[in-house]
């Protein structure tokens, strides 16, 4: 069977994601169920998926200096058998590079832009246009204008929402032409992660949902007989 239809069973067994990220308050399938379905992946694909999830959810690698972090990610990216995964990782690292540049410029006004380090092809552009409001990238990356405004205004939640939205749209574009192959599985899991991340931001709904789950779990128990 061709690679394009390698995971027909797996993809068909998963509920579809919504078109609009912010219209839902929880992922369409639980992590336990998702992991059960992902057991259908071949060994190498399962390892690659775990690795890219781990890398994309990365917040901080303790004990590693900045230069070591760059080499660590570059080495990890090279280990992926599938070029699609390398592209996914590179895109996310470039996004983080842009945000890191904004933060660094805000927190350290005296920082020499030529010393800036990051991932991707835009690092040189960022260094050259360090004093430019949008690093000279506004025409190529339209959302960067809004991101810069939100960051200056200290609107962390709105900025996070914008980043999630940009990532969501990017994954929607990547999904074009991938229906039942391994990249389709990766995109599904990436989008699941985004919804999961968004859902934890809604504290009130999370508490209500938790109460509902507890009530449902305890509904069949007769406490007086205990």
């Amino acid at each position, binding site marked *: *069977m061709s690679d*394009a239809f390698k995971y*027909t069973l*797996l993809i*068909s*067994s998963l509920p*579809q994601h919504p078109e609009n990220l912010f219209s839902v308050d929880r992922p369409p399938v639980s992590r336990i169920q998702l992991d059960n379905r992902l057991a259908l992946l071949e060994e190498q694909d399962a390892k690659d998926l775990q690795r890219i999830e781990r890398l994309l959810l990365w917040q901080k690698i303790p004990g590693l200096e900045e230069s070591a972090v760059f080499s660590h990610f570059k080495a990890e990216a090279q280990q992926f058998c599938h070029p699609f995964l390398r592209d996914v990782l590179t895109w996310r690292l470039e996004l983080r590079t842009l945000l890191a540049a904004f933060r660094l410029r805000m927190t350290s006004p005296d920082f020499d832009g030529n010393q800036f380090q990051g991932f991707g092809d835009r690092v040189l552009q960022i260094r050259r246009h360090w004093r430019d409001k949008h690093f000279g990238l506004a025409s190529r990356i339209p959302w960067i204008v809004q991101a810069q405004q939100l960051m200056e205004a200290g609107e962390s939640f709105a900025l996070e929402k914008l980043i999630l939205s940009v990532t969501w749209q990017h994954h929607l574009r990547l999904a074009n032409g991938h229906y*039942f192959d391994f990249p389709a599985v990766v995109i599904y899991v990436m989008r699941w992660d985004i919804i999961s991340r968004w859902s934890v931001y809604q504290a009130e709904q999370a508490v209500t949902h938790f109460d509902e789950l507890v009530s449902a779990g305890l509904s069949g128990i007769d406490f007086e007989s205990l």
Partner: protein
Amino acid sequence: MSELTITHYFDFLGWVGIYAPMALGAIGSIVGCAVAGQAAIGAMLDTESGHGRYIGVSAMPSSQVIYGVVVMFTLNRPIQPDNGSGIFAVGLLCGLALMFSAIYQGQCCASAIHASKAKPEIFGLSVAPAAIVEGFAVFAFIFALVIAGSIPST
């Protein structure tokens, strides 16, 4: 090339031509039904109802092997030097058309099952591409029968 070898050569072509529609149609149906069947099983894991129609759609690519069997019997006749190449050409080309139509129909069916699982109201429309592909298989089948009448039998 000796007379005996030429006879064998045309015999070979003739038998390939007779059996090709059935064999290639079967290969196509195997692949097509396997892809669509996997989509149907996956959809059954995710839904509570409508399982029957998923299985029904996943069986659509099986018609090509039936067309292949009919064409095989239509082409089946004593093979001679003056009809071996004709049987070969009609049988092989018809078989290839049936095989590819079954494979791609299976992919259409898998997509239809996946789409209609999330939106049951589009089930009828989602099967339309698979039905169009079936139409091309019917063309190949019908005209193979028509053209087989022009191949000498004796």
